[in-house]
């Protein structure tokens, strides 16, 4: 196999080249390799716009016809900002909601600057006076618990500066973890904090980013305080659902209505095309004093998925951390043979929280003997709190100067729903 690097020599991406093979020669622009291309393949953009892959062989020759020009400067673009409109802050943290495609190579880049984000969604400026800031640019799968604290601190600062509300743009994979973290970390919140993302990147004509972002801006401009996630409500580009930050979960890998409120209905809806925001229930705005970031995040918490193959050793490993959350089976169970190991962990002072991998419904330690044994071992049953929310909450609770069990059982940010009607 002849590797493309050996063959390419001085030829660089963007150069016009001619590749000669035994029976054929190809002329085109040298492209970066497709991320799934084989190592011996050169990607070329032909004059007709198509990319093709040419296999490097012993007798393959390459000739640079024309070196690429320096990258064209970006065009000056101006978006009119109306300072009479309500001021909304948009905090970028990454994800595909503000990505753009580099047509030359087809590479999709996340927005690197505030302008990138605004230019890919210019409609925002029609609804508010946007203040755009890129806090960091990470794929959501790469976000770590420390980042939640960074976001929380910046949100507190921004809200103190007097903006109407904050929109946090975020990758969708771990968005509900961040929304849960902000729900606990932001104390005394009397303004809207809205997390938003997109399931189809904004470089595509069919992206859901624009509708979601407009909905988020509308909600951030409303007087509904709290941490919310706003995303498509159905596969149609019609309305977006408002989910509570602690009750929301990504329930589909790819659909644009992947986000669902679990164990409760969405709190409300936003119709981005008309700007209408409606809530299921009226809520009096409590003007709280003293917005602050309360507590921190201790990331040393395990989330364990109960399953028939789980061993005592798995339990002990998980117990080496400062806290354990179990996504139990059914009503909050696990193999009773594992309970002694769990007991050891708890006796060493590590809190163990029980949730359900069913997600829908609440755990209950009284129905079956396994539940009773777990309770006796000291496992804290966490009602209908989502496993991920429980994990984030425990990370937070561990940093507070309060009894962990008490904090975990208290309904702090709507993470418990007392009545489930469906």
């Amino acid at each position, binding site marked *: 196999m002849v590797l493309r690097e050996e063959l390419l020599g001085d030829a660089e991406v963007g150069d016009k080249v001619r590749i000669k093979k035994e*029976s*054929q020669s190809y002329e085109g622009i040298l*492209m970066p390799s*497709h*991320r*799934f*291309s*084989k190592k011996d*393949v050169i*990607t070329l953009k*032909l004059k*007709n*716009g*198509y*990319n*093709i*892959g*040419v*296999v490097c062989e012993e007798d393959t020759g390459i000739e640079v016809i024309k070196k690429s020009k320096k990258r*064209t400067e*970006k*065009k000056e*673009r101006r978006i009119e900002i109306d300072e009479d409109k309500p001021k909304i802050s948009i905090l970028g943290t990454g994800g595909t909601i503000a990505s*753009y*495609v*580099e*047509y*030359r*190579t*087809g590479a*999709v880049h996340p927005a690197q600057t505030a302008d990138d984000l605004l*230019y*890919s969604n210019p409609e925002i400026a029609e609804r508010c006076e946007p203040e755009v800031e890129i806090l960091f640019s990470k794929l959501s799968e790469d976000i770590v618990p420390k980042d939640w604290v960074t976001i929380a601190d910046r949100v507190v600062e921004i809200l103190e500066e007097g903006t109407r509300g904050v929109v946090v743009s975020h990758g969708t994979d771990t968005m509900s973890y961040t929304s849960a973290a902000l729900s606990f970390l932001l104390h005394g919140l009397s303004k809207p904090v809205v997390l938003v993302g997109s399931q*189809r990147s904004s*470089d*595509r*004509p*069919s*992206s859901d980013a*624009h*509708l979601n972002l407009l909905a988020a801006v509308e909600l951030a401009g409303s007087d509904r305080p709290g941490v919310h996630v706003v995303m498509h409500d*159905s*596969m*149609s*580009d*019609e309305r977006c659902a408002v989910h509570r930050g602690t009750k929301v979960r990504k329930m589909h*890998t*790819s*659909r*644009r209505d992947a986000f669902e409120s679990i164990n409760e209905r969405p709190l409300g809806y936003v119709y981005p095309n008309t700007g209408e925001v409606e809530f299921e229930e009226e809520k009096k705005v409590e003007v709280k004093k003293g917005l602050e970031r309360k507590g921190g995040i201790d990331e040393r918490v395990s989330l364990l998925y109960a399953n028939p193959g789980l061993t005592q050793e798995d339990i002990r490993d998980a117990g080496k951390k400062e806290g354990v959350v179990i996504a139990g089976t059914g009503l909050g169970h696990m193999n009773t043979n594992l309970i002694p190991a769990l007991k050891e962990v708890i006796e060493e002072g590590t809190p163990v929280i029980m949730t359900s991998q069913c997600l829908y419904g609440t755990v209950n330690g009284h129905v079956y003997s396994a539940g009773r044994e777990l309770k006796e071992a000291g496992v804290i049953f966490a009602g209908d709190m989502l496993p991920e929310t429980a994990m984030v909450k425990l990370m937070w609770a561990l940093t507070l100067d309060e009894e962990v069990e008490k904090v975990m059982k208290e309904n702090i940010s709507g993470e418990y729903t007392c009545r489930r009607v469906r």
Partner: protein
Amino acid sequence: MTMSEKIDHEELGLKVGLEIHQQLDTEKLFCGCPSEMVEDEDGTVLRYLRPTESELGDVDRAALMEAQKGLKFRYQTPESSSCLVELDEEPPHGPDEEALDIAITMALFMDAEMIEEIHFMRKIVIDGSNTTGFQRTALLAIDGALDVNGKKIGIPTMCLEEDAARSVEEEDGVKVYRLDRSGIPLVEIATDPDITSPQEAKEVAQKIGALFRSTKKVKRGIGSIREDLNVSIEEGARVEMKGVQELYMLPEYVEKEVTRQVTLLEIRDVLDKRDAKVQEKIYDVTEDLKECESSIIRGNLKRGKGVYALKLEGFDGQLRGEDGEALLGPELAEYAKKTGVAGIFHSDELPKFGITEKEMKAVEERLDIGEKDAYALVTAAEEDSKDALQNVIERAKMALKGVPEETRQARPDGTSVFLRPLSGEARMYPETDIPPKKVESTRLKRLTDELPERPDEKIERYQEEYGLNEQQSRQLFRKGYDLLFEKIVEEHGSPSVATNMFLHTYPDLEKEGFEVKNINKEELLEIFRRFRSKEFAKEGIPDILKGVSQGRSVDEALDAAGLESVGEEDIREKVVELIQDRSDFVEERKMGAIGPLMGVLMKELKGKADGEKISEILKEEIEKRI
């Protein structure tokens, strides 16, 4: 305006290139859905599309023009033939391997050079026909060629791509598409502009169509093969015409496009002579038309809309000919309509539509219209009118230069209508969700070994092997009966009976309303097996086919047709009986009695005995008598 009676296409430098899109009969290209058109709508989903911004801040010219029309679409999502992939709710799966095989087979047929690693691209299309806003397409092979009547036609590119959703209706200004067609694999074959006459366009298309059919895995019927045409004449411009569905009409489309270009060039010359100009100024003439009788204008004025005008200096008589022949008028209107207005009024067609000379006079005065000038009117809200007239300005300026490069939509009557400017180059970027596909040499070898017989070879073989004539051979192939035919003949012989059945009995039965397409291969083989074992005569075949086409089994159909076969002894008995009955007649006519008696016997024995056999026995028995 005079138009030369007979157009000499060669002298005009006519060049035609074809792009042929053939649907493949496999699963869909990027998901496991069956590629079937269905009647159910199931749910609908509402979507918006917006042009994407490239790094340079340029939105494609064609995409932008579509965007002006408002980009809201509704999709019907029949579950039997579409899934989340077509809805752009799930990433595409890898390309269908069978579709790839067929596409490669076509490339082999055309001696094209295979691309070693195939890369799917996203071609931006935001007319709503793709939920994604782009069509996925890959270049598969280049530099092929075809021999058509001894002339070499270059095949520069062959692509494998996905079909678009089909437009089913327009509901309150929202286009409705059904996703059943979306994602059906298409092979696109483009020819070089080597075609120089309208007739040749058809011949090339026929040749390519025949090659497709010989792979046996392509869809048949209306809409399964679509042709785009590229037409230009020397002084004209390249015009792409999309969506020709009737192959036999290709020459007409070419002829009409040539006529259109010639007319536009003649108009250009007149405008040039007159030093014609297009003013950029748009006039508000609402005041001049407020008493107007036109119901459209009246209605619009009532709703607070207005009437706006554009002066076209030196354009008089060039919008519409004196004999009513459409000139620039429709072209201007088509551009205006792209902004959403219903159309335009222009001075060459007025007074009409409730606009009187009095109102014309007022407008003419306001615009300072001279003897050789023309004008266009639009009625709509101010912003919309201005957008529409801006497009008219653009198109009128192009008229000064001659023929604009554009993409046009073929209409069923052989004409075409403006669709969008010819697409720029910035329309394609890589489909990052689909890994590139290396075409392995083992695959090429397998497909080369399995290469189907080419149409010409097959037609020749039929003549040699089965004694058919050329026309019969061609028709069997063209109608798609060749494989069935070969199977029948291979197992049971009787090529001429089978040919007759496919080429004559089938069309006859269809005319009578029998659904012969319901008859499957197993049933046909069963019918021929029994025919060979002389259970009935060939004359019985039509009646059996009728029964089977109505859902009967071959057995039931045989019974129903009363075709229990009559053996030689029985025939002889019947013949002897008849000769005795008519002994006087036989005495009198001698051998001359054969004809009339044959008629009687055939009626009685129809389908139960072979005609030749009957005739033979009759002859013998009469000879015995005389």
